[in-house]
């Protein structure tokens, strides 16, 4: 699997994503500067976490209009898989590649902690490495992770099996107790219609090294390598 990571000037999880991708694929990752107008030919594009252009306005609002995102959108339209993590998820919603928005966390505070997620489907290239219903532990670190969409959109996402992960308690309960940020229906990650684009607030790249306290995120990268080999 050849992967590219988009680097905005305020990205700060670009290196973390690169490390996890290279570890999983064994191949060097292309780091693509935001001002570039052409994307290398790759099997996966990752829009990483961070604060793309400072995000003083709203997470990802400016990044959505950057030259490179036009290329990413075009590639996604051709079916190239795109993974947006944290700020990357915000960028993908701001671009319209994914529905809904990420609002300020319900408690109005930045939240950095390991949370439990329930894997809602294993029927995607991103989640093939998990079992449906599996509870995994992956960290979140965000100010604006409170997913919101209108009820109709949420129903459609659910009906089409486009919810990838939901926040849960360690026992797998989907309710307020396991919801760190107030996200609608505990949504932590969603797919586009073709399930070739995934946006998620949790950071799988932070749970891919046993030294850092967990490897539940590694299955996502390993699954991608297997699917896109």
């Amino acid at each position: 699997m050849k992967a590219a990571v988009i680097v905005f000037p305020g990205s700060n999880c670009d290196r973390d994503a690169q490390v996890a991708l290279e570890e999983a694929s064994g191949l060097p990752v292309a780091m693509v500067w935001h001002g570039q107008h052409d994307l290398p030919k790759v099997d996966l594009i990752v829009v990483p976490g961070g604060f793309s252009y400072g995000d003083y306005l709203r997470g990802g609002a400016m990044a959505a209009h950057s030259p490179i995102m036009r290329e990413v959108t075009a590639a996604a339209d051709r079916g190239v898989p795109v993974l947006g993590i944290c700020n990357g998820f915000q960028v993908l919603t701001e671009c319209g590649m994914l529905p809904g928005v990420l609002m300020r966390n319900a408690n109005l505070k930045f939240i950095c902690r390991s949370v439990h997620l329930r894997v809602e489907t294993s029927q995607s290239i991103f989640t093939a490495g998990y079992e449906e219903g599996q509870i995994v532990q992956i960290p979140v670190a965000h100010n604006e992770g409170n997913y919101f969409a209108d009820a109709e959109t949420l129903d459609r996402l659910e009906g089409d099996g486009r919810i990838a992960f939901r926040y849960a308690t360690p026992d797998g309960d989907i309710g307020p107790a396991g919801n760190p940020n107030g996200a609608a229906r505990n949504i932590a990650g969603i797919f586009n219609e073709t399930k070739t684009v995934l946006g998620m607030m949790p950071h799988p790249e932070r749970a891919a090294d046993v030294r850092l306290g967990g490897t539940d995120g590694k299955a996502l990268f390993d699954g991608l390598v297997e699917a896109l080999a």
Partner: protein
Amino acid sequence: MNDEMTQSEITPEVVAEHGLTPDEYQTVLDIMGREPNLTELGIFSVMWSEHCSYKSSRKWLKTLPTKGPQVIQGPGENAGVVDIGGGRAVVFKIESHNHPSFIEPYQGAATGVGGILRDVFTMGARPVANLNALRFGAPDHPRTRHLVDGVVAGIGGYGNCIGVPTVAGEVNFHPAYNGNILVNAMTVGIADADKIFYSAAAGVGNPVVYVGSRTGRDGIHGATMASAEFSEDSEEKRPTVQVGDPFTEKLLLEACLELMATDSIIAIQDMGAAGLTCSSVEMADKGGVGIELNLDAVPAREDAMTPYELMLSESQERMLMVLKPEAEATARAIFEKWELDFAVVGRITETGALVVTEKGKTVVDIPVAPLVEASPEYDRPYDEIAAPAIIRSENVPNPDDISAALTQLMSSPDLCSRRWIWEQYDHMVMGDTVQPPGGDAAVVRIHGTQQGLAVTTDCTPRYCKAHPETGGRQAVAEAWRNLTAVGATPLALTNNLNFGNPERRPIMGQFVGCVKGIGAAAAAFEFPVVSGNVSLYNETNGEAILPTPVIGGVGLIPDISKCVGIALPASDQAIILIGETTGWLGSSIYLREICRGEEGAPPPVDLEAERRNGGFVRDQIHRGAVTACHDLSDGGLLVGLAEMALAGRMGATIEATSTLQPHAWYFGEDQARYLCTTAAADDLIARAREAGVPAMLLGRTGGGELNLPGGITICLDSLRESHESWLPDYMAKA
């Protein structure tokens, strides 16, 4: 002389407003050989402010041990530099942003983080960890909640955005900080040992380049504000607080590191306190050269800024560099890529003077060496502070119920869980945080290696108040123990000396005592001081803070697979108490929280015993014999054990009994002690005996409770609830 230079009359009132004494002003006149203009007076004022000149503290700072085979750069540069082998160096410093944070907590704390980050990356290091040391007023003081909320959000807001993990820190609450909170921020970075950048300018004719944010009217005279006491009108000083822009700092960080990878920079200095003035004067002075600045070329955020404002602005995210002349194009291209202002604002001269021009006219002409060398240095009179009487444990009431006392301590403001704080900090970004906040020291892996850096900040102000010299020793000892307890070899320290008004003899006595204690401990541990900051005048209407000399410690872990944490790891392990317990309750948390007393001599710090016990513990960790370790400090033995149990979600049973009174045994704060768990207790105790280190089998791990002799049982779930809920509950109150 042009119009502006003669425009404002320098009256005694103007001199006083600039914080200069009549004697100091006479020195200015002697240096200048004429009356200075207002801009020049402003420059003398900030350069000779306590904050920039260390005029009250310098005499004593010189007594600190600053050398060692590992030290590449000691105090005097933007940050200290220590060799860690493998061609790498660790670069670190701590700095205060106390006064601004009290006035405007979010921006004050945020720009404190921004400033210390710049100090570290100016030296050529990539920052890899942020820490902080915070002191707030009494929880029931009407401002405290607002200040905690703003400071924590500000620290997080800056560090999270720039993408440097905030991994460790400490927080205390005490009424002595009601009018003056402390916000000390520390940054640790990693550089190539042979690519450290310094601030000494050189090369007559070389361009002086300004990069980063534009200059606005914010923060003018911040350094002067930080050098005076507060009074009721401190609110009016809000305009002197700068506003942080972490995104621009991220750009500046990346652009500087990119430029540093080329061979372009002769000298670099960040614009922090006193902005353009301090950076240009320091660069010129260190290089023994003159510097000429053209203010028309300085990127300004606002129109019609005067020379006074441009020279004294403390706008953030700015750097001044001297470049090799042939490197200008390379440098400009890098800064343009990062969309940052890049302007040649001057050149190095042979005049030895700081000459500033505006619209072709000279508006400042000050000889640099006298400006720096003649900066006042005071040998302020002080009172020697004797240790108070020792309190015997027989004279301190025992609690009715040990279990209730433990719960009360674990849910007290100073010992409750800090999770509410550190979950607002991105402590994982950069993917190398091996030990997150909540332990003795945080551990950050050196990227791409198996080495780690252990980092901690420590100070026990109530000990420093009771007896400054002991308190100074203890602060160093605790930092050293915290590094030791994760298996690190302590390398060097940085200190942030926070005190009240040094013009008062008892306060100066606190300062001198603490510095003596720090010096003694640093020398004994071969744990030199490589950088630091002094913050004086932390008092309001004559009420001073507790003396708070914060120690930031850095240690090296050769192999992170060998480092240990505080969490009880497994059941049926032996718990070993290392060090001697006498049951010292004077100045303890027990005395304060349970008996409402703050009296008594603090626990003595036996530096030899510290060295011996700590060395033993570290060796056993390296040998793989220790599975968890925790230094004993605030709250003593039982609090330490409870913290280990909560972290490991694992109970323990204390089997050993003591001849001491229960409160002295469980809550005494004797120093040089650790709790370790091991699978091989007999062997560990035998080795300790051989090393002359006191060690005893305390008990065993297992179950879901803490069991004490005499049928005392403490439920971990309810203890956790109390421990975790105090801070969030407190902050949730309107």
